[in-house]
């Protein structure tokens, strides 16, 4: 690619470069700096050129200053539903986009069932399997209203949510399926008492309970209109045959995905770089038809040039999945170039329901800010 590397349709030769650098990178270097070239066998130029003096000999400053960043940076929301969001971030680097993705998956707090107090379980689902399944049920509550529960704290209304599950399949009736809507919220705290092994305790001593709720959680204004329930009422927790019974209490606490994946607020969060499909030469008539039929996601379109001649154009480059079908076969690599734009990220976040996805992203930004602040306060 040292000499005569074609960009678009005109041929470029390095002998045409001016003697004094003009403040702009020549096209072949700009391509290397800002695009990942996806060739048939492997992508090249995947690393981002971060070093500020990388192009110092050309007289170009590769450093990024805050004012330039804030002028060029854009966020454009493409799709926003109740459960997922797709938006574009233009002007940042993969390092920061990856930090957001990691924080979304592992460091945003949610509420999930942690302790399960089983009073009676005669079903065929083992205790620990039942507890594991209950922990994975997503709960529809804003975790920002709660505090963390550490080992020294007592469980109270500010850090615990208590659910109760009591189902029974009567003898003679058919098998029943226990779904997640059977979990009932107990706003007043736990109803079970701790067993005291002390044989000498008399009946006047107060029985110990598991949670110490000062006031009912129903009095909190957010929960008056939205009682705390699992987000999806049709998750199968267990199945009971005749005569089997499950009676348990489940306590939900706040945690982050790093400790256990049940506390991850996203079904998943991912990003991809914007694909760019460039036709290096005019593709006409039969070749154009062939190209259009090759692409499984219909990236290409045919336009009529008049007089029966047709030409292929790139209609939907964003839909490209980089399957490389269009460059398979002889000579196709010379006609079509597949690239990715290095600073344009298409982010998709799918929420499990505790928080809406756009709130999840703003919370992730706040968490990254908190981390930076913590480092700075430690240094100073």
């Amino acid at each position: 690619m040292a000499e005569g590397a074609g960009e678009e349709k005109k041929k470029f030769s390095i002998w045409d470069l001016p003697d004094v650098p003009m403040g702009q990178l020549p096209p072949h270097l700009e391509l290397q700096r800002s695009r990942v070239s996806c060739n048939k066998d492997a992508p090249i130029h995947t690393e981002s050129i971060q070093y500020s003096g990388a192009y110092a000999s050309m007289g170009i400053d590769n450093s990024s200053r805050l004012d330039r960043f804030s002028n060029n940076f854009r966020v454009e929301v493409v799709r926003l539903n109740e459960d997922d969001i797709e938006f574009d971030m233009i002007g940042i680097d993969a390092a920061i986009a990856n930090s957001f993705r990691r924080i979304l998956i592992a460091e945003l707090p949610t509420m999930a069932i942690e302790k399960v107090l089983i009073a009676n379980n005669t079903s065929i689902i083992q205790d620990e399997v039942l507890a594991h399944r209950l922990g994975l049920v997503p709960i529809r509550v804003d975790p920002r209203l709660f505090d963390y529960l550490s080992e020294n704290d007592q469980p109270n209304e500010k850090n615990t949510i208590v659910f109760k599950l009591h189902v029974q399949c009567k003898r003679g009736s058919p098998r029943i399926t226990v779904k997640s809507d059977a979990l009932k919220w107990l706003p007043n705290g736990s109803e079970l008492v701790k067993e005291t092994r002390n044989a000498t305790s008399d009946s006047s001593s107060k029985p110990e309970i598991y949670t110490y709720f000062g006031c009912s959680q129903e009095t909190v204004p957010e929960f008056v209109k939205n009682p705390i329930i699992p987000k999806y009422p049709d998750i199968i927790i267990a199945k009971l045959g005749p005569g089997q019974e499950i009676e348990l209490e489940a306590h939900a606490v706040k945690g982050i995905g790093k400790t256990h994946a049940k506390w991850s607020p996203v079904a998943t969060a991912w990003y991809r770089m914007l694909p760019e499909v460039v036709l290096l030469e005019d593709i006409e008539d039969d070749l154009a038809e062939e190209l259009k039929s090759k692409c499984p996601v219909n990236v290409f379109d045919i336009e009529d040039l008049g007089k029966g001649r047709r030409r292929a154009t790139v209609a939907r480059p964003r839909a490209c999945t980089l399957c490389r079908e269009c460059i398979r076969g002889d000579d196709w690599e010379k006609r079509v170039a597949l690239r990715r734009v290095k600073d344009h990220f298409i982010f998709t976040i799918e929420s499990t329901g505790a928080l809406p996805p756009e709130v999840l992203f703003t919370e992730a930004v706040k968490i990254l800010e908190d981390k930076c602040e913590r480092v700075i306060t430690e240094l100073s």
Partner: protein
Amino acid sequence: MEHGFFTDNSAATFSLTDEDHTIANAVRFTLNQDPRVTFCGYSIPHPSEARVNIRVQTTGGAVFDASQYAFFGNDVLEEVELGGLDDEDEDLPAAGLDEEEFLFDQEEKF
């Protein structure tokens, strides 16, 4: 938590506990973009231990100016809601994340 700080004023290794690639890669990228930095990299000594070492070597003479971080002391929540981000210009690139929030909120309205 710095090491190798006494002899040479222009280079240091920072050892951060309870951190991982999430913040280390972002800091490394941002530091590399600064023209006063000659070398910046990070490593994780052992994956089972949550510790990351960030090594920075500079051209010397970069004075630590605490006034740049003035915004961190303020009530950050208030700034996001009122959109009071006019005085962000002298802050570190890491502080520029606030602008992202602001722009993102703008998008939501449309």
